[in-house]
């Protein structure tokens, strides 16, 4: 049943991909050297010239680009093409203040949309499908990326943007949407709303692509059961292009990286040493086809594992695991690393909705961790003792998972905002 958007790449042999990468990398390093003085200085500081880079084997010689570089070079410092050739920006609010602004030439947009089209075809999209894009439109890459991909595939594209649930559900039922693209938290919210309104029989969805947020396997199951679909992950970041850097296939065991455009590496985040495939570490990307924002060895801060194991879908593109945590999201509480995804896993296992908020504070020089969880009709009891018992079980399960105590606070339903774009999962009140 497998379908590919660009089979010549998606099912190419390793040797073919590698040859393509070698050729493109050499060309790209030269392009950056000539057009991005900021990076050229970094290369000179390391004593590297384009002549030293003869292929992927030499990639490790190049300097890294970090979020700090993006901040320092903001807004035009990493631009690799003349502005007259640039046709678009996309932007994301950095978790640490300054925005990231990424530039695109026509060709960059075209290649990015190809990547999204590969993702859509991998989940079964054809020109017969109705693709509801409920990611935010605008500066956020989610809407633009999947919208462009859906056009390329030829699906009927519903440019819904995020929010306005009434309108989402009206179009979904009236036009018979078959593919839904949005954040996983919004998918869960739509699923709940569909059940509340008794619309389950009127939904024709068969698959969904849900990215831009961390989500667990439990949440996948909830969404799949709730909407009666297959739910697929997609990976991307504005700095590298947007969604579609990697995408899930029918096997749902990791995301194929579009490595004809983006070369992945895994490094030890502390020593910056490159680790062999199969090791867990920080994901680093080198863009080998992008013109306007050609980041080389960009440190994503995402922790994951790469795999070249044969995939049943027939794609030969290397796979990355779901990020196990993002150093940006990673909280250090009482000296312990806490990932929101760990908390989400516990909540779902204990029957709580996957909607939560983590509040970290510092009281009397000691960190406090509080998890806000929404009460549901199923969990509620007229007997206070039942609720406190349940709460104690949750506290104890969280302690087992995280290794530290987290206070649980039960709140009324829909208290935690989530209908617009990304849900606010973490509030760090510590002033350090």
């Amino acid at each position, binding site marked *: 049943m497998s379908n590919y958007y660009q089979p010549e790449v998606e099912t190419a042999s390793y040797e073919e991909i590698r040859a393509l990468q070698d050729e493109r990398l050499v060309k790209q390093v030269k392009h950056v050297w000539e057009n991005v003085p900021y990076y050229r200085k970094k290369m000179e500081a390391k004593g590297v010239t384009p002549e030293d880079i003869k292929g992927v084997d030499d990639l490790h010689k190049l300097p890294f680009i970090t979020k700090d570089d993006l901040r320092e070079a903001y807004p035009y410092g990493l631009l690799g093409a003349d502005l007259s050739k640039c046709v678009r920006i996309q932007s994301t609010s950095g978790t640490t203040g300054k925005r990231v602004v990424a530039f695109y030439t026509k060709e960059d947009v075209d290649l990015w949309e190809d990547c999204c089209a590969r993702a859509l075809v991998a989940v079964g999209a054809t020109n017969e499908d109705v693709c509801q894009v409920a990611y935010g439109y605008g500066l956020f890459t989610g809407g633009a990326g999947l919208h462009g991909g859906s056009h390329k595939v030829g699906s009927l594209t519903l440019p819904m943007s995020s929010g306005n649930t009434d309108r989402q559900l009206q179009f979904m039922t009236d036009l018979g949407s078959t593919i839904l693209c949005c954040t996983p938290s919004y998918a869960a919210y739509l699923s709940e709303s569909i059940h509340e309104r008794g619309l389950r029989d009127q939904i024709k969805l068969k698959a969904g692509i849900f990215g831009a947020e961390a989500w667990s396997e439990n949440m996948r199951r909830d969404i799949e059961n709730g909407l009666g679909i297959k739910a697929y992950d997609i990976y991307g970041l504005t700095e590298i292009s947007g969604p579609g850097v990697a995408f899930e296939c029918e096997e749902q065991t990791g995301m194929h990286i579009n490595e004809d455009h983006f070369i992945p590496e895994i490094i030890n985040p502390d020593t910056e040493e490159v680790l062999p495939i199969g090791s867990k570490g920080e994901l680093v990307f080198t863009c080998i086809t992008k013109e306007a924002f050609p980041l080389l060895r960009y440190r994503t801060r995402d922790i994951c594992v790469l795999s070249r194991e044969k995939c049943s879908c027939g794609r030969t593109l290397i796979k990355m695991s779901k990020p196990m945590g993002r150093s940006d999201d990673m909280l250090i509480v009482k000296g312990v690393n806490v990932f929101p995804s760990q908390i989400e896993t516990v909540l779902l296992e204990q029957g709580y909705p996957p909607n939560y908020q983590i509040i970290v504070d510092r009281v009397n020089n000691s960190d406090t961790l509080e998890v806000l969880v929404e009460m549901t009709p199923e969990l*509620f*009891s*007229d*007997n206070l003792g039942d*609720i406190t018992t349940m709460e104690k079980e949750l506290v104890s399960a969280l302690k087992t998972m995280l290794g530290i105590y987290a206070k649980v*606070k039960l709140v*009324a339903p*829909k208290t935690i905002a989530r209908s617009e774009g990304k849900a606010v999962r973490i509030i760090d009140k510590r002033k350090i």
Partner: protein
Amino acid sequence: MAVNQISVFLENRNGQLAEITGLLAENKINLRAISIAETADYGVLRIIADDSEKAKNALLQNGNIIKVNPVTVVAVPDKPAGLSELLNMLAKSDVSIEYMYSLFTHQNDKAYMVFRVTDYDNFIKLLSKHGLTPIHSAELGLK
């Protein structure tokens, strides 16, 4: 035969109780009993309303998390030791009380107590042994 009780999830937030009683008042629903059990962070409000169906719908529409379940109302002699005799009897049995509270109404020298117990059938047997019977909704004028 049993009386419907509505429990409402309360967040520890100023004014939430007033909001709920206000909502019920707006809908012309009379409360016949109220009890609150709470921790520092959340609580359970239990009410007996004169029209439980109407109260249930108003609360659901307001987005509250609620639960409707039957409780037993017993008329206890309104005199010193009236309640303690009943509680003593329960203490000697296998039936334990999960919670109890009283109705606002007093009638015919009786006080009405609301009970939620672990073993309903045994509770009824014990009551009848002592000449007591559960009160029907209709007797209290409840819908």
